């Protein structure tokens, strides 16, 4: 059986693994960090874009629209929170009106269904908190909001359940061409593979350059965000964009699929994966967002974060054969999350082109079901607690996450080993107290389940220790 190595387990790598895992291939996913979905996938606007932004004829245009169609199906099958709530692109000036006209014609060319231009008054009728300054807007009913890391985790978990091997803490340091295929030299040892898929996100240029001449380079651009308490979550009912510019789609205001409000991003060139939030960046976002929705209450802010776009010096996605049996999925900037499953289809076609035989397995898993206590009705909750009392213990009070769900996360196909790993799998600590209450309790559960000291539990990436030892201990 041919062996395929996928470098990177963000949403693109996970989508490739998921799609490939229904075929007779030996899959190894090689991830540099100690958990998956830990780069750009966990820090972005969490939007499935309708597909009117990309220039017609580009890869981005085609794969975005195809990705939206697939998101509906995949999210249903794999139980990923996804809501099609639609989006508006607001116009404040005549120039903006020309821009949204252009986007409307893009939408027709790209095959996006249902877009239309509405008057300012019509928009305010539907979204009462939108600024009085808005004179028109493009409405796109197929835009949606998703939980991006859960999208990634769901696809990766399914791949693992279908036999894919996930190697964490394995940063690819160099690659050698073998007689057939490649040898990846990683921080945890060598991995041989017949075919390689480069889905390394902001590191994709480095990986490419290990096997081929440089043809593109990553241009790091960070975007900063605000997250608000659920009290602000109904401020708008759809994704509110401003007109896109060269640097990005501008500052958006949107509900999240968990019911919070998200504001951002800005776009600032940065050095490497700079995940810091700046006072200037936050001020820029506040001002820009106020243009769209003037009455956001900042005393309800609960978190800021920064994500780094996988931009390159090329305007389109870079999807192609970098070298024999070696596929690049690089420069997957926005609308990358929206396009991920369609990008994976491209990868499979390219692998086939390189000689990989795709024989469908007789049996494979293509479904997933999660317990989400807070979304259940009374009868379902009663039944659940009867079947397993640990679902009767609420550990995260802000998000109503039970001990049972935390244990599920710790014992899932790709087990949570860190505090943030648990958070990414069951939304604990995402609420207004930001883990102040449940954090120590989840650390206790992690330590118990893994049979280690609480001091050994990390917050997120390797080295992010929470506790430095027992009290009255000399070494501390």
């Amino acid at each position: 059986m041919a062996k395929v190595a996928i470098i990177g387990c963000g949403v693109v790598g996970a989508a490739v693994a998921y799609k490939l895992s229904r075929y007779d291939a030996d899959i190894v996913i090689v991830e540099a960090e100690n958990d998956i979905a830990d780069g750009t996938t966990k820090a972005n606007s969490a939007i499935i874009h309708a597909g009117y932004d990309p220039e017609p004829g580009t890869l981005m245009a085609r794969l975005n629209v195809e990705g939206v169609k697939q998101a509906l199906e995949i999210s249903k099958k794999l139980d990923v929170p996804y809501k099609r709530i639609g989006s508006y692109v607001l116009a404040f000036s005549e120039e903006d009106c020309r821009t949204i006209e252009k986007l409307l014609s893009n939408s027709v060319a790209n095959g996006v269904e249902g877009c239309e231009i509405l008057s300012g008054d019509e928009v305010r009728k539907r979204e009462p908190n939108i600024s009085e300054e808005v004179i028109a807007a493009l409405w796109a009913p197929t835009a949606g909001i998703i939980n991006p890391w859960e999208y990634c985790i769901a696809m990766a978990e399914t791949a693992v359940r279908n036999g894919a091997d996930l190697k964490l803490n394995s940063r690819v340091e160099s690659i050698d061409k073998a007689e057939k295929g490649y040898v990846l030299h990683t921080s945890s040892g060598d991995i041989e593979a017949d075919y390689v898929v480069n889905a390394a996100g902001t590191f994709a240029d480095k990986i490419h350059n290990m096997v081929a001449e440089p043809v593109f380079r990553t241009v790091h651009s960070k975007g900063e965000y605000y997250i608000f308490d659920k009290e602000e979550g109904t401020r708008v009912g759809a994704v509110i964009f401003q007109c896109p510019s060269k640097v990005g789609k501008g500052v958006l205001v949107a509900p999240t699929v968990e019911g919070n409000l998200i504001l951002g991003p800005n776009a600032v060139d940065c050095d490497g994966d700079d995940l810091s939030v700046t006072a200037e960046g936050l001020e820029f976002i506040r001002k820009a967002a106020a243009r769209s929705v003037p009455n956001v209450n900042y005393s309800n802010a609960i978190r800021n974060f920064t994500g780094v776009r996988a931009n390159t010096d090329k305007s389109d996605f870079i999807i192609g054969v970098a070298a024999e049996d070696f596929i690049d999925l690089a420069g997957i900037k926005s609308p990358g999350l929206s396009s991920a499953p369609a990008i994976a289809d491209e990868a499979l076609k390219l692998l086939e082109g390189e000689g990989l035989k795709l024989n469908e397995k007789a049996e494979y898993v293509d479904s997933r079901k999660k317990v989400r206590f807070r979304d259940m009705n009374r009868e379902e909750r009663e039944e659940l607690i009867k079947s397993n009392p640990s679902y009767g213990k609420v550990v995260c009070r802000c998000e109503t996450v039970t001990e049972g769900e935390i244990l599920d996360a710790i014992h899932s196909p790709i087990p949570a080993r860190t505090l943030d790993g648990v958070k990414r799998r069951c939304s604990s600590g995402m609420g207004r107290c930001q883990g102040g209450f449940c954090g120590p309790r989840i650390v206790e559960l992690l330590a118990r389940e893994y049979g280690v000291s609480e001091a050994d539990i990390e917050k997120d990436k390797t080295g992010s220790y929470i506790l430095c030892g027992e009290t009255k201990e000399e070494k501390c």
Partner: protein
Amino acid sequence: MRDLIVIGAGPAGLAAAEEASRNGLKDILLIERDDYLGGILNQCIHNGFGLHHFKEELTGPEYASRFIDQLEGTGINVMTGCMVIDIDEDRTVTYVSKEHGLVSEQAKAIILSMGCRERTRGAIGIPGTRPAGVLTAGAAQRYVNIDGFMVGKRVVILGSGDIGLIMARRLTLEGAEVLACVEVMPYSSGLQRNISQCLNDFGIPLYLSHTVTEIRGENRVEQVVVQEVGPDRKPVPGTEMVYDCDTLLLSVGLIPENELTREAGIKIDPRTKGAVVSDDMQTSLDGVFACGNVLQVHDLVDNVTAESLRAGKAAAEYVLSGKKRGEVHSVVTKGAATYAVPQKIRCDAEGNVTMSFRVNRTIRKGTISLSGKDKTFISIKRSDMTPGEMQQLIVPMKLVGNIEPQEFVLDVEEVTE
């Protein structure tokens, strides 16, 4: 139907439940989400509790155990490890636990005593990276005092709230180095005695009108940048001090935990972020009372106890007499007063009403007055009022008399010589 359900068994819930029992209620259910009673007092192992209520100095766990011991023989039903997830307008309380599953019960009265939570980094938007090692003072207190683990070796504390000050001392005693305590306001929000006993006694500097303007470090905190702020609370360029540290503790305020209250449709005061109550501690929803930090953030547990005794007694009277609240006066604030609790005073209230409030600045010499439409009921002089210390005004209702419902004004003015 239960006589009374009390939600939260910290100092507020314990005192309220016991007082309701002493005043004749028989079927009382006390619900606690943690596995033990006493709430946050269990992790407050320092002393200084009980000076007013017990006239002696106790630790937090000792203070709690006085009340827990008194439960015996009262017949109060206690449920621990049990979380209330919903309160209906008809006073039906829905809770879940491992032991009992999902249960709904109606009560003649409810007392809300869920306490408060800490403000976080996200609420104040501190710039910088997002490493481990940034945590609230209360979470650190739990790790150190309950779980027995240290949270860091070199610590900077942002905010001069009492828990932060207490943790400055605690971490020092546990061998950590507390480098500084930084407060954005020109005054501390903590009690004077804590500044003296927790910072000054250990030589920990307190920087007023300073804040943390950047957190550095990829996976764990490596540095924080502290800067002076101007009168507009904006950082002053050129005043940066860089601390090499592994931990930043936040003690930047407490917020009453009123999600259940809000969902029940009970009116919230935007200033206290707690329920609007009348002098009997009754909220806008008939038969639902509130007390302790869920109503307003207190500095002293003794004041929580006093307030909760009033709530427990009033809830018992409400259930036993079946009498609904009549007409009320409303209380608004003026001058340096930032809020007043209770926000309503019953026209037929008897005895003394205790008004709690805070001031928005340090007042060396001031007057406090409460006036109606055409009469000042009470006016007293008070010196040394600070924003960090809750003020109280006792209002004998006989001074108010039997008058028609009207707006009262609580006014705090500074006296300049």
